[in-house]
């Protein structure tokens, strides 16, 4: 059951204020994934304080890095259910968890951070892992 939108809105804004595009419908997801060129990243946001509470500021820190995905989007687990289902269809071999972060290169999944790679970690740790992935994937794609 979705949480009240007024509770979730600040969590959405934490990412959208960074310029990250929010995908609210399956059509939004398909449109984003249709462009297979270069690098992209989808952050699966969630209300979970144990994990997403660190993931959002971790993503924010990681985007200060010079190399980063060319296109970045977010979907919200438990809220925009159809959009999340559609997003997961692009990584159907991976067990669902939220929050999680998927980085794609030329339309293929290049790096994946599952929930257990986020929970209990500081934003700095999460950012460090993402930056390492960006430097390996996105710098090479330039």
């Amino acid at each position, binding site marked *: 059951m979705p949480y009240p939108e007024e509770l979730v809105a600040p969590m959405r804004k934490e990412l959208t204020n960074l310029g990250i595009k929010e995908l609210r419908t399956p059509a939004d997801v398909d449109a984003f994934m249709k462009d297979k060129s270069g690098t992209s990243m989808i952050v699966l946001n969630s209300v979970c*304080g*144990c994990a997403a*509470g660190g993931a959002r500021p971790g993503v924010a820190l990681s985007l200060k890095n010079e190399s980063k995905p060319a296109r970045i989007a977010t979907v919200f687990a438990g809220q925009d259910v159809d959009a999340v289902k559609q997003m997961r269809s692009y990584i159907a*071999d991976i*067990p669902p*968890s939220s929050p999680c972060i998927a980085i794609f290169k030329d339309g293929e999944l290049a790096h994946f951070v599952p929930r257990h790679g986020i*929970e209990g970690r500081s934003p700095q740790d999460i950012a460090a892992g993402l930056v390492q992935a960006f430097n390996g994937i996105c710098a090479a794609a330039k």
Partner: protein
Amino acid sequence: MGTFHDNKSELHGITVVVDTAGPKVYVGRCDDMDDRQVILLDADEHEDGKDGRSKEQYVQRAAKFGVWKKHERLVIPRAQVTKVQKLGEVYSGAPAAVVSPPKPAESPAPAPKPKAAPDANGAVVALTPNAQEEVRRLIAADGKPGLGLRLGVKGGGCSGFSYRLEFDQKKEGDTVIPSEGFSVFLDRKSLIYLRGITLDYQKGLQGKGFVFHNPNASNTCGCGESFSV
């Protein structure tokens, strides 16, 4: 790191690997952990050697991407648990910091006596060694190794509720309690009434059969087949 839940264990919300002394290993999100049990949500289980994978190989694979949940809620008796480890520490390749569950309370003897009632959050259902042995024997005799033991209650009986005891498959929403060689299933309604029970199997001159010791029951009928709360 129970961010918003001070009343839960430090691993609340964290995905953990729960290893046991037996062939099984579990991965799931820790809901709570105390000296009686480890409660996992969205959990998967693996048996050593199944699908050609050892426990270690299964955990390594789980660490890479996660697990597909088999159980919404799984209660693992503390006595079976040898180690609880954050899956994220396997994922990162960092030194494996092991968080040991609290030691079980000291008990003078391991006699299969009924246990004290757990608190309101407790969900333990215990089977004495005699009961476990009898269930294993009956399942083996039935010839359907995938079956588990379903414990439940239904209205009726001389004291208000009757116990249900049958072999069944796991159903959606069940709480699953692993035991050696089989699992115990309880639906949500039954769990409310059966939390804290001990199932015993008695054999003796005065007859034999399964006996429920229910700390929730305020009154039990003479035959022991029904109770009230």
